[in-house]
C-alpha cells in the first residue's frame, strides 16, 4: 500500500480519556460541585440515619418545656408543644428528599419523551404541543399545584405528580431545542439514508447527544423541585402533619415570630436554604463540567 498509510498515526492533540471520564474528572476538580455535593450528601445522610443520632424523638411533645430557647439540653430550643427543634430539623429532610427527587425524575422522563417527539417530528403536532406547553408554563408552578391539589386532595403522590408534570414542559422545552439543533445535523440524514426507523433515530442516534443538556436541566430542576415542595408544604398543600418537614414546621410556627420565638423557624429556614443552595452549587458544577 502507499505511503498514505503514515496518515494512520493518531494526532497527538486528542485526549486519551473518553468524554464522560473527562466530565467526571472535571467535576472532581470543581470546588463548587464538591461543596454542593457535600451539603446534599449531609442531608441525605440525615434523611437515612437521622433518627439514630437525633437526641430526641422528633414527634414527642413535652408541653412543660414548650417554646424553650436554645440551651445545652435543646440546642435549637423547642417548639410550641415542646418538641425538640434540633431533632426535627435533622429528621425533617426525609420527606422533601423523597418527594422532590421523584418529582424531578417524573419530570425528566416525561419532559425528555415529549421534547424528543416534538423536536423530531416538528410540523403541526409540534406547533400545537409547544403552544400548549407554553401556555402551561405561563402559569406559575405554585398556582398550578395549588389548583391541582385543591382538586385532587393532598398526598405525597399528588405533590409528586403535580410538580413532576409542571416541570415536564420546562424540561421538554430544553430537550426540544437541543433535538431541533441535532435534527439539522447530517448524521440524522445519514440515518434516513440507511432506512432507520424514527424510534431508532430518536433514541439511538439523537438521545445520547442530548444527554448533557438533560443532565444539566435535571439537576437545576431538582433544586426547584425542593423549592416547590418546601413552598407547598409551607402553604399547607404539601407534606402534611405530623411530619417534621421544614416547610410545614415554619408554616405552623411563623405566626409567633413577632413574639420573639425565632428559634422555632430560623433553623428550619436555614436547613432549606442550605439544601437548595447545595443542590444548585452541584448543578452549577455539572453545568460547568459539561460545557467545558
Amino acid at each position, binding site marked *: *500500500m*502507499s*505511503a*498514505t*498509510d*503514515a*496518515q*494512520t*498515526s*493518531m*494526532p*497527538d*492533540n*486528542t*485526549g486519551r480519556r*473518553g*468524554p464522560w471520564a473527562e466530565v467526571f474528572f472535571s467535576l472532581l476538580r470543581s470546588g463548587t460541585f464538591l461543596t454542593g455535593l457535600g451539603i446534599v450528601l449531609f442531608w441525605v445522610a440525615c434523611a437515612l440515619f437521622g433518627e439514630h443520632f437525633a437526641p430526641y424523638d422528633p414527634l414527642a411533645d413535652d408541653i412543660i418545656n414548650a417554646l424553650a430557647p436554645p440551651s445545652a439540653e435543646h440546642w435549637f430550643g423547642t417548639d410550641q408543644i415542646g418538641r425538640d427543634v434540633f431533632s426535627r430539623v435533622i429528621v425533617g429532610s426525609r420527606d422533601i428528599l423523597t418527594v422532590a427527587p421523584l418529582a424531578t425524575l417524573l419530570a425528566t422522563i416525561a419532559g425528555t419523551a415529549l421534547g424528543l417527539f416534538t423536536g423530531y417530528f416538528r410540523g403541526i403536532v409540534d406547533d400545537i404541543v409547544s403552544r400548549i406547553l407554553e401556555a402551561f408554563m405561563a402559569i406559575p408552578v405554585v398556582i398550578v399545584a395549588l389548583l391541582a391539589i385543591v382538586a385532587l386532595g393532598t398526598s405525597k403522590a399528588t405533590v409528586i405528580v403535580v410538580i413532576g408534570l409542571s416541570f415536564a414542559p420546562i424540561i421538554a422545552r430544553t430537550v426540544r431545542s437541543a433535538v431541533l439543533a441535532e435534527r439539522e*445535523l*447530517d*448524521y440524522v*440524514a*445519514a440515518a*434516513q*439514508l*440507511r*432506512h*432507520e426507523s424514527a424510534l431508532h433515530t430518536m433514541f439511538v*442516534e439523537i438521545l*445520547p*447527544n442530548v444527554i448533557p443538556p438533560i443532565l444539566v436541566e435535571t439537576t437545576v430542576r431538582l433544586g426547584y423541585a425542593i423549592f416547590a415542595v418546601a413552598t407547598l408544604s409551607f402553604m399547607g398543600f404539601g407534606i402534611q402533619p405530623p411530619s417534621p418537614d421544614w416547610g410545614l414546621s415554619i408554616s405552623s410556627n411563623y405566626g409567633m415570630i413577632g413574639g420573639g420565638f425565632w428559634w422555632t423557624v430560623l433553623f428550619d429556614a436555614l436547613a432549606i436554604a442550605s439544601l437548595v443552595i447545595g443542590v444548585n452549587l452541584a448543578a452549577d458544577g455539572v453545568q460547568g463540567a459539561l460545557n467545558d
Partner: protein
Amino acid sequence: MTEPAKPANALELHDLSVAYRVGGRNRAVLRNLSLGIGQGEAYGLVGESGCGKSTVALTVVRYLPRNGSITGGAISLDGQDVMKLDAEALRRARAESVSMVYQDPGKALNPSLRIGRQLTEIFELGGVSGQAASDKAIAMLNRVRISDPASVMQRYPHQLSGGMQQRVAIAMALANDPTMLILDEPTTGLDATVEAEVLDLIAQLRQELSASILFISHNLAVVSNMCDRVGVLYAGMLVEEGPTDVVFNDPRHPYTVALLRCLPRGGQRKDHGRLDTIPGFLPGIGAAIRGCAFADRCALATDRCRTELPPLYDLGGRLSRCHYHEQAQSLPRATPSDAAASTPKAAAESVLRVEGLNKTYASHGHALRAVKDVSVSLRPGETLGLVGESGSGKTTIARLLLGLVPPDEGGRIELEGKPLAARLDNRTADQIKAMQIVFQNPDSALNRSHSIRHLISRALKRLAGLSGAALQARLDELVRSVRLTDRHLAVKPRQLSGGLKQRVAIARAFAGEPRIVVCDEPTSALDVSVQAAILNLLADLQSKEHVSYIFISHDLAVVRYLSDQIAVLYLGRIMELGPSENVFAGPHHPYTEALLSAVPKLDQTETSRIRLDGEIPSATNPPSGCVFHTRCPRKLGAICEEQEPSLAEAEPGHTIRCHIPYAELARLQKQKAVQTEPA
C-alpha cells in the same frame, strides 16, 4: 539568526513567542517568530490551520484571547514597542497606526448600529464630528467602490450582502489612513466572484494608500497574487520566507515543496495520476519540538533534523529553516503518482438519469426556486461535477437526488433505467443503498456518541445486510480500503483529525457497495494536504469499485481533478453542461468564463480579468429573462432581460444556456485571449 533589523520597517516581530493556557498548562503557539514588513510592503503569511497565523495578527494588535499570553520577544510597530505601551498609548496606536480586517464580516460589524454610525465614530476620535464626519464616511465608502454610499450609511449590517459588509469593514480599517493594515483571511467564506472583487479592491487601494499590509491566508494562490513577500508558517515557526514568486516557484523548504504539490494545478486530472500528500500530522499546539518541527513528516529528514533545530538559513534575500534547503525540491513523493484512474466506457448505459427536476421552497410568502429544470445523466464510473456559488442550488440537487427533500411534481429520476420514487420512504432497500453521500462536514455527519466501529458496522448491517463474521470480514476490508486501521475503530469521531473523520464517512458511504456516491464539498473543511489525500482516495475507490460520483464543490481545481462532466449552476439553473475538459477549455458560458477568471491561480498568466459587478441576486426574486443578465459582461441587450435562453447544444454533449451563438462566444473569448497575450 534573523535579517538585520531595518529601522524603516512598518512592523517588526523579534523572537516572538505566544502561548495559550489550556488545561492548566501553557502551550506554545508561536515559537521565536521573527519577521519584518517594510514600509508600503505587502507581506503574506501562509500556513495550514493550527499553525498560528491568526495568533500573529492578534498579537500585533495585542488582542489575544483571555487564555493567551506573550511569553517572549518584542513587537515593534512603526518603531514603537507595542509590548511597552500602556492602555492609552495602545488605544492611540490602534486608532492611528494599525487596523485589522478579518474573516466573516457579518460578525465584525455591530448588528445594532447603522453603518454610518460605525464609520463616523472613527472620525470622531480624530475630533471630526457632525456633517464633516458624515462627509468623510461617505468619501470612504466611495473609496471602497460602494455605489450609493448615502443610503448604505443608513443601513444596518444585516441588510448588506457579505461582499458589501467586507467593503464596509475595509473602509473602517482604512478610515484613519493606518501605516499597517492586517488582513486575516479577508475573503475566506466569500463566493469566488465576490472574493475576486474584494481582492481587486484591496490591490487597487494599495496603489492609492501608503499602508503596509500583513496578509494572512491559507490560500497560497491568493497570497501569491496579492503580496510582495511571503512567509510560510509551520507549528508556530517561520520555515521559509522570501519574495512571493521566488518562494512559490523555487521553494527551499520541504514543507513548502510538499504543500505546493498537494494542490491540483494546471488542469491536473485524476487520470494524470495521484496528487502528492503530506504524511502525518501537524504537531499539536504546545507539543515539545526538538530539532525541525517538520522532521516527522519529511522524507529527507536525517538524525540531525530530529535533534538540531535548523536556523533560518539566509540564502540571499530569502530564508529557509532547513538543514538541507538545497535538496528540498528533491523531496520524494509521499504518494506515488501511478494508478491512472479508469475512464468510463463511452457506450455504457446511464446509471442515473434526471429530467426536469424542480424544487420550490416557500420563503416568507415568496416562492424560492432553488432548483429549476435540471436534467443530467451519469454513466457508471463517471464523475459529474456540480459547480456554483452560494444560492446555485447545488446542495439542494444532491438532497433531491437522495430523496432527503421531495422535488416539485413533474420531474423524473431514473436509476439504472427504472424510475426512482421522489421520497426516500418510497424507495426500495436496493435503491437506497445504491445512492449514498459523503457530507461536507464530518463532525455533523458522524454521530459523536458512537464509536467508529459502531458507525461503520451499523451501515454494513443496514445497507449490506451483513452480520456476525461476514460483517467483521467486510468491516476489516472496508476500513483498510479507506486506509484506516483497527486502532481507529474503538475511538469516537472527535478523537480523530478532520481527514480521518472524512475517511470514516467515506467508508460508511461505501458500505452497501453503492452505484452512486454524492460528494457534497467533501474536502472544503480540510487543509490542502489532507484534501489531496481524500481526493486520491476517492479516485482510487472509483477506479476499483467503478462507482459514479456526483461531486459538488465551489473549488474549480478540485472539481476539475475529479470530474468527467461538469454542470455549472447559477441561481438553480444549469448554465453550462459538458465534458469537463470542454467546459474548462471553452468556449464557455459568460458566467463560467467569469468564474474561471475569478479564481486566484498560483501560476497567474492572465493580465486582464473578468470581473462581475454586484452581488448574486436572491433566488426569491431572480432577474427576468436570463438570470445572469444583471451581472453578465457580455450582455447583448433587451433579449437577455426578457427571454430566458434555453440550454442549446454547442457541440456534441456540451450545452450552454446563452443567447449568444456558440460561434460568436468562441470568437469573443478567443479575441480576449489574443488581447491578453503578452506582446
